[in-house]
């Protein structure tokens, strides 16, 4: 109780109303300014597919697509995505069918523990949409923002190559 009282005396800025379209569904939310998009997804919306690895932009586990572009959700304030469209790993598959990229990750055994995989797949989706990577070297370089602690890199590159061939 004492703690509650103490806390209520600290002025906290109000929550801010925002509308964010998440995996196709518009959500009207009230968000504290310091909530990152990653924490909004995981802690407030129970979309725990997106992972928190480092929380500092250094691993890529939190990669999601905002207006179709891959970004690190741990360094994004949720209030700043007001009006945007967010796609997480939960929104990659259409109608319960695996997307070509997801199938390619399975075909190539492109993961071990799977912790980096949602970020890898969202990042690869962004990479394919950007259309800049042609060679294996270019895929590796443009996927360098996604660390895989299990070292599944060769299989991840092979999976992306397969998906690029199909899309």
């Amino acid at each position, binding site marked *: 109780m004492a703690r509650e009282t103490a806390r209520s005396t*600290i002025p*906290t*800025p109000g929550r*801010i109303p925002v509308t964010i379209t998440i995996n196709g569904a518009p959500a009207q939310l009230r968000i*504290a*300014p*310091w909530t*990152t998009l990653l924490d909004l997804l995981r802690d407030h919306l129970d979309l725990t597919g997106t992972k928190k690895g480092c*929380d*500092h*932009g*250094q691993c*890529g586990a939190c*990669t999601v697509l905002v207006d179709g*572009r*891959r*970004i*690190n959700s741990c*360094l*994004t*304030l949720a*209030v*700043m995505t007001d009006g945007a469209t967010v796609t997480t790993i939960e929104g990659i598959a259409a109608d319960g069918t695996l997307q070509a990229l997801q199938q390619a990750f399975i075909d190539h055994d492109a993961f071990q523990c799977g912790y980096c995989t949602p970020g890898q797949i969202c*990042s690869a989706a*962004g*990479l394919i949409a*950007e259309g*800049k990577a042609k*060679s294996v*070297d*270019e895929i*590796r*370089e*443009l*996927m*360098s*923002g*996604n*660390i895989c602690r299990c070292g599944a890199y060769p299989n991840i590159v092979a999976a992306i190559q397969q998906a690029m061939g199909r899309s």
Partner: protein
Amino acid sequence: MINFDYARATDVADAVRRIAADPKAKFIAGGTNLIDLMKGDVERPSRLIDITRLPLKTVEETTEGRIRIGALVPNSDLAYHPLIEQRYPMLASAILAGASAQLRNMASTGGNLLQRTRCCYFYDIATPCNKREPGSGCSAIAGINRMHAILGASEACIATHPSDMNVALAALEAKVLVSGPAGERAIAFSDFHRLPGDTPDRDTNLEPNEIVTAVELPPRGFATNYTYLKIRDRLSYAFALVSIAVGLELEGSTISEARLALGSVAHKPWRDKAVESALRGQVADQDTFALAADLMLRDARAHEHNAFKIELARRGIVRALTQAARGTPQSQSDKRVA
């Protein structure tokens, strides 16, 4: 991260008004540096002024043939912009050498200029740091200083500026356009970032109540003979130990114009006009390049762990000048150094 207020600027004048009204407020653009620092309580703004909705997102050619890059143009869009790819490939290359694809999608042109050092003591609020807390001392001078400055450092601070993009902007002689309560002004790139001196808490000459609105490139782009060579501990997604931007103009084998800038060796991108004039009129060969490297590093000073950076910079300069002269710039995806 401390609690803070949040507001969106509606236009540049509104942004300037809001920042002037609250000395503890900060602008936020991509957030990739600021949010990171706020998570560690290194930055503790009372209020964030979101500038991402301002109309500063275009890359345009002016009537004088300059290129004006809006402060909110994302690093990735800039690197892949046709005008930049074709006329300023050194800049495109430098941007693509930095961070990751995700971070480049978020990071803005203005934010990249104002990113802070990666000195580990600056990040660690348990240790003294003159940049974070003026007068508290510098932990790096007697600490782990492998990544630190070899040029232009002071007794107060030996941090480096970590940006890749800025090294190319220095070599290209860009201008930074800013807006403040007194109106607009243009700052030459070499005057934008500061040496630490005894005020390392100030990274740049931007006033606290000013906003960067654009970066302007002069017509000369060095699109034929250029390179951006970045040397680091791993091949990608790592800050530079030393980086070198070179632009040359050649008449036959003689150098008619030269630009050379180093990154991650000083508190600002390091350019030295004496070296560039020494290169002018010389034959583009290994002897000329070795002399230029020696001249560029004549005042270099090592700390306990970073003496290797002086030799690395020396060899890197010779290699980068060679790449530029041959017209074989460093690839940012095939990492073999040719």
